[in-house]
């Protein structure tokens, strides 16, 4: 078997390969379920019934889709610029911190409190990613720096909720007081789907798609990502593009963090409760969308189904919670491995 490089991989080919790699991933997971001693058919049917089959399940999918859509769209932009942001988790947390700080401690009149909460969330996430962009100028790899900043963000949240921001009436628990009512997002009745954040997510995905394909900045971003040599030649500053990209991708994750605290928890609490690994799962969302923010409108719900489905498996089939990570991990591996099939034609046999 040999690989012959394709001069211009088509969009159709990329789409088909992506679907095929998801299929392979599901088959591999099926194998794992067999070894675990459950029937894969039962697992998959339980997942589908529990997520897409009833309104409670759909609401759970929707709740998880919101942060995935926001973070994934931002990551799609970052990956196109070859800025490998693995720190969506930390940026989400910083967004949550800034949002919570605004909601709790800034006395703003009701109607402008929520917009301020979101804006400050975006600022928090953006600044957190900006650290990695600035470090990159000193040749610090952003994969490492964004990843490490996740842990610092977790520690910062823990410090705040156990220390200076610890609520007055919470006794032994570590979290802040509840937000004032004006800082709480409306939800679809009977669910935890904070629809304003969902609307925001759709707008961000479409807006970033426009930015990428229609704006002058998107053009510069693609040149920097696809040929840094040409960017230098044409006088496009890679450092400036990276800075803006970091602010966008971090800002989108920060919005997600603001949405989680203002829409669901109404307070700042432990990192593990604010985010169910959204920052990492969103990497798959962006990768599945092959760097197109608008396609995250499809891929984010897909991963939302898997996240929500994992919970169903835990409850209905008594499977360990980590089953979700198995799914995510296998899908990501298959996606990355499938890249070679997008860029190359496969020829069977020894020699042409």
């Amino acid at each position: 078997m040999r690989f012959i490089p394709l001069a211009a991989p088509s969009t159709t080919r990329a789409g088909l390969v992506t679907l095929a790699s998801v299929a392979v991933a599901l088959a591999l997971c099926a194998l794992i379920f067999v070894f675990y001693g459950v029937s894969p058919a039962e697992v998959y049917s339980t997942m589908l019934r529990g997520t897409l089959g009833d309104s409670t399940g759909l609401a759970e999918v929707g709740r998880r889709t919101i942060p995935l859509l926001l973070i994934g769209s931002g990551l799609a932009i970052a990956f196109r610029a070859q800025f490998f942001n693995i720190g969506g988790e930390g940026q989400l947390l910083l967004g949550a911190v800034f949002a919570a700080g605004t909601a709790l401690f800034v006395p703003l009149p009701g109607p402008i409190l929520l917009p301020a909460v979101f804006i400050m969330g975006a600022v928090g996430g953006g600044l957190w990613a900006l650290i990695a962009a600035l470090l990159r100028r000193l040749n610090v790899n952003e994969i490492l720096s964004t990843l490490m900043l996740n842990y610092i963000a977790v520690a910062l949240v823990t410090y705040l909720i156990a220390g200076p921001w610890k609520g007055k009436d919470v006794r032994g628990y570590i979290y802040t007081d509840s937000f004032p009512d004006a800082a709480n997002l409306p939800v679809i009745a009977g669910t935890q789907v904070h629809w304003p954040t969902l609307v925001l997510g759709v707008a961000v995905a479409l807006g970033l798609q426009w930015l990428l394909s229609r704006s002058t900045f998107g053009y510069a971003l693609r040149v920097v990502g696809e040929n840094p040599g040409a960017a230098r030649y044409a006088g496009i500053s890679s450092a400036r593009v990276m800075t803006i990209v970091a602010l966008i991708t971090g800002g989108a994750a920060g919005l997600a963090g603001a949405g989680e605290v203002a829409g669901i928890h109404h307070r700042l609490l432990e990192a593990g409760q604010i985010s169910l690994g959204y920052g990492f799962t969103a990497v798959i969302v962006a990768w599945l969308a092959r760097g197109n923010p608008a396609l995250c409108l499809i891929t984010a719900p897909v991963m939302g189904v898997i996240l929500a489905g994992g919970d169903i498996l835990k409850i209905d089939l008594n499977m360990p919670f980590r089953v979700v990570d198995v799914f995510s991990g296998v899908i990501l591996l298959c996606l990355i491995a499938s890249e070679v099939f997008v860029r190359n034609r496969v020829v069977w046999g020894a020699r042409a």
Partner: protein
Amino acid sequence: MTQPQPNSSPPALELRGITKRFPGVVANDGVDLTVAAGEVLALLGENGAGKSTLISILYGLYQPDEGTVQLGGQTVRIGSPAEAKKLGIGLVPQHPLLVSRHSVAENLALGGGSGLFPARGVAGRVRELSEKYGLEVGPTARVSDLSPGEKQRVEIIRALLGGARVLILDEPTSVLTPQEASGLFRVMRELRADGRSLIFISHKLDEVLDVADRVTVLRRGKVVGGVPTAGATRESLAELMVGRGVDFTRKRGAAPANREVLLDVQNLTASGSRGLPALRSVGFTLGRGEVLGVAGIAGNGQSELVEVLAGLHPARGTVTLDGQPLTGGAAERFQGGVAHIPEDRIHSGTVPSMTVADNLALRGYDRFPLARGLARDLKATDERARQDVEQYSVATPGIHTHSRLLSGGNIQKLILARELHGNPRLILAVHPTYGLDIGATDQVHRVLLERTNEGAGVLLVSEDLDELLSLSDRIGVMVGGELRGPFPVGEVTRESLGLLMGGAHPHSVPGADQGVGA
């Protein structure tokens, strides 16, 4: 060219009809080459003549599209560097690939040793080989303490440990002092006496004459000559290397006297990528409508000179264009009338994964008419692309085709179309016709000359002396970061330029001692 030699055993290595194509360029075109046992063959050629591709094929990094490789008369397929080693082909890379914190023996054991403490077994063999060939490398020395020459000898030992019968030395002297180089040549002679075959890559003519038995010259991917070094001279080799051009007739009339000064460069000094001086007080003027040729062997400061003028490289000194100081970054200078046809059309001149239309928008994508505010005007971008493609007859399936699918000539036409848009005053053209066929070369030349008729000045950097002589009004030579000349084109010849490029002083070169500075 490679007749089987009667009355002798087959050559140690024989290449026949090796062809290797890359998108946009034929790197090797039917290359034939032989090396006998106990022979040093020099592979001579300009940058990009196809030497590196040929070596990569020999070392199993690339597969040829056509042609065969024979070792000792047997046709072999070299699928990987590991297979190359197994077949007895060793490569001494230009820049040694060693772990600097480890000892020599530990480095050599890497990938080659066996057992629990592979370095111990290797140490004995290292001493043995070192003595036999006068390599003078101690197995226990730490690599970080070694000089470049010693590191290179470690690489030679590595190849010999692997049982190499054919040894390829890729520009081995580029990192060496003259003394170290002569030490290397002694080692090479020892290896030759031992019956090994050596392929020596260089573009330093003296070294080639000194150490090689035969020379094979590559030009634009083809073998253009093969001669024994006995009886060859620097001049004859230089002539082979630069070759007789596509069109040697002069394409320009005599230069008018007293041109208006367009570009004035004074005392330009710049550092290269390794902090070494790349430009040393370079000064010249370029007149309106003039073509100033810059000759020189690669790495003597030509690239830096162009990058400085294009706003891509910092420098000290003064540069004025039409009397105004030339400042700012690359984009700003382009808007100010400085076009740049870059040395590397794939890696900096275009974005291969973008469409022809997007590539044509690389300059001016963010301003009217290609953009309105923050939004690109895709209609205007397409319209501009259609015009450019037609005007410069770029052969492309469409304006939304990825530029990587275009041939080298058409990519170059695309770059010309983009750079010459908006009538630049100064055109910096680096190897503008390298790798192009005759038709495309002619078109590029014609377009550049048309622009000079309209008053633009062209700084033409080329390694092709024929091109320089047929287009330039004056020619300067870059040597070690200094500009010799420029000399009016009537006062220099291929031979005198060749000598100047080799570092000869202008006073000792006939015809070049009258050189005027401006």
